């Protein structure tokens, strides 16, 4: 009797979990399938359906053919923009965060707790509080509507996250290690290069994945500080959906959505474990 109810409850659990999993995957499946259907096919039926003819050309059009405003270069230039912003901003913010995290956790200096406290405020303050000042500052230093401006913003903003991640990781490193190295005459940078950095790969992977996803997916800054050809891919997707509102091109749009989401999805698939670690590190301070 007990056996039977156990088996029944196991079946129920699997049923429920698989059902929810299917619901969670459905949106992705719908977009993938639509990216392979022609616009006419979608227009005649619904967004949900199996492709009758595999329209691989959607991807080509999405990548380099469709028109936003007066330029018809597809999503390619915007993907390039996003890459040109995301890669340097990720590298800069991670490196600076590692040095700052090391300084506040192990090197210690006057006022470090205060500075660190203010830096982590950046995790909470809404972006909207900084939109106007950034606009003014970027204009004054001539970086408005440039990719370099976005790199600058994401690097400085990212420091709040990267410093927090690295600091939380570095406090666990035994202070004796640093003290011994100091007695041997090693300075700030030598200790960083020789001791801290070799111990850092686990946290640097977390930080890089976190920053990359964050910056790639960011939209508000992209749409506020850049326009036209300088926009990142998130902003271009919105512009695209506005542009095709009259003559829907759902097949091409789906392909564009997939292409735009691909970098972060790949990173998630490859580094899922570290992605979760980043989430929890960001949540449990």
């Amino acid at each position, binding site marked *: 009797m007990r056996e039977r109810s156990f088996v029944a409850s196991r079946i129920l659990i699997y049923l429920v979990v698989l059902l929810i999993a299917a619901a*969670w995957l459905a949106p992705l499946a719908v977009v993938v399938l639509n990216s392979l259907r022609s616009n006419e096919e979608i227009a005649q*039926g619904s967004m949900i359906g199996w492709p009758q003819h595999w329209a691989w050309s959607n991807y080509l059009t999405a990548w380099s053919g469709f028109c936003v405003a007066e330029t018809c270069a597809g999503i390619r230039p915007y993907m390039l923009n996003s890459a040109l912003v995301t890669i340097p901003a990720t590298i800069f913010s991670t490196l600076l965060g590692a040095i700052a995290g090391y300084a506040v956790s192990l090197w210690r200096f006057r006022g470090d707790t205060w500075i660190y406290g203010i830096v982590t405020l950046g995790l909470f303050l809404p972006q*909207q509080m900084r939109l*106007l000042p950034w606009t003014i500052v970027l204009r004054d230093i001539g970086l408005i509507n440039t990719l370099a401006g976005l790199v600058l913003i994401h690097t400085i903003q990212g420091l709040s996250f990267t410093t927090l991640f690295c600091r939380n990781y570095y406090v666990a490193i035994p202070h004796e290690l640093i003290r011994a190295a100091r007695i041997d005459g090693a300075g700030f940078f030598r200790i960083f290069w020789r001791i801290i950095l070799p111990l850092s790969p686990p946290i640097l992977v977390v930080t890089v994945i976190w920053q990359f996803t964050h910056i790639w997916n960011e939209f508000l800054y992209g749409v506020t500080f850049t326009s036209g050809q300088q926009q990142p891919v998130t902003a271009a997707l919105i512009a695209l959906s506005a542009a095709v509102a009259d003559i829907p091109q759902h097949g091409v749009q789906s392909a564009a*959505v997939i292409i735009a989401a691909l970098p972060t999805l790949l990173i998630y698939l490859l580094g899922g474990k570290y992605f979760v670690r980043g989430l929890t590190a960001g949540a449990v301070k």
Partner: protein
Amino acid sequence: MSNAVSIRPGRPALPEWVRRLPEYLMIWVPLLLSAAHLVSFSLWTVWISFTPSTLVPVSGWVGLRNYSAVAASRNWQIAFDNLLLFGSAFVLLSLVTGLALAILLDQRIRGENVLRSIFLYPLAVSFVVTGTVWSWLLNPGLGIQKLVHDLGWASFKFDWLIDRDMAIWTIVIAAIWQSSGFAMALFLAGLRSVDADIIKAAQIDGAGPVRIYRRIILPSLWPITITVVVIQLQFAISTFDLVRALTNGGPGIATQLPALVVYDLMFQRSLLGRGAAAAVLMLLILLAVLLPYAAWRYVQRRRAAHA
């Protein structure tokens, strides 16, 4: 703290501060830039909110006029009501979904890793993508309603996206799909950290799984629950991209949210002073959530330190 200056023969000794200059620069420049921009930019926005700025920031003082103008506008009132509804519904439902998923995955089921990845993947995708996709699925003429019609159930109705009263719920749906995996991840970590000995002892005493969950495991999840609530509320308050891509505030202004009002005032209507006031109001809403949380954390820490 002693820093021995090693003077190597044949090289003139540099003054201490010159020798350490690169180090100071590397520590202080990024940290100060980060801290200073957070503080000064926030104060700057607060200041602009008290000026009569429209197209460009100007000096001057209008007191609370921008604030009363924002608070009196229909746009803001709807945005605020929506935030209350969206915030509470989203937080509550994502808590329930996340906890349910975590408990299910905690039953030692096969393929746990794959399932966990499935529930978490929406988090890796941008809100712009998520919003776009859900706007298709929920579009009555294209998505789920159309599919069910084509299958033969002609009277089926699921048109929340274009229904003024229900549209806000489409944002709740998409937001839950997007981020209840996050709640799940935190809860799962909490469930796994419950002391196995206590559970074993309860089992020996004859307690069933339901009782063990209710009496032992779930009560230990309180701290995580509060963390999840605060983070999800913070997300709800600053929601922008998702709405922009899903409904763009519509139909009409039915799904307006504070973050959209700020953007609209600042960059579409060029009412900088009012936009800044709306941003400060957003900050105040956020503080109403974060300050009690900070106080709670402080008390917890004090208690832990005394224990």
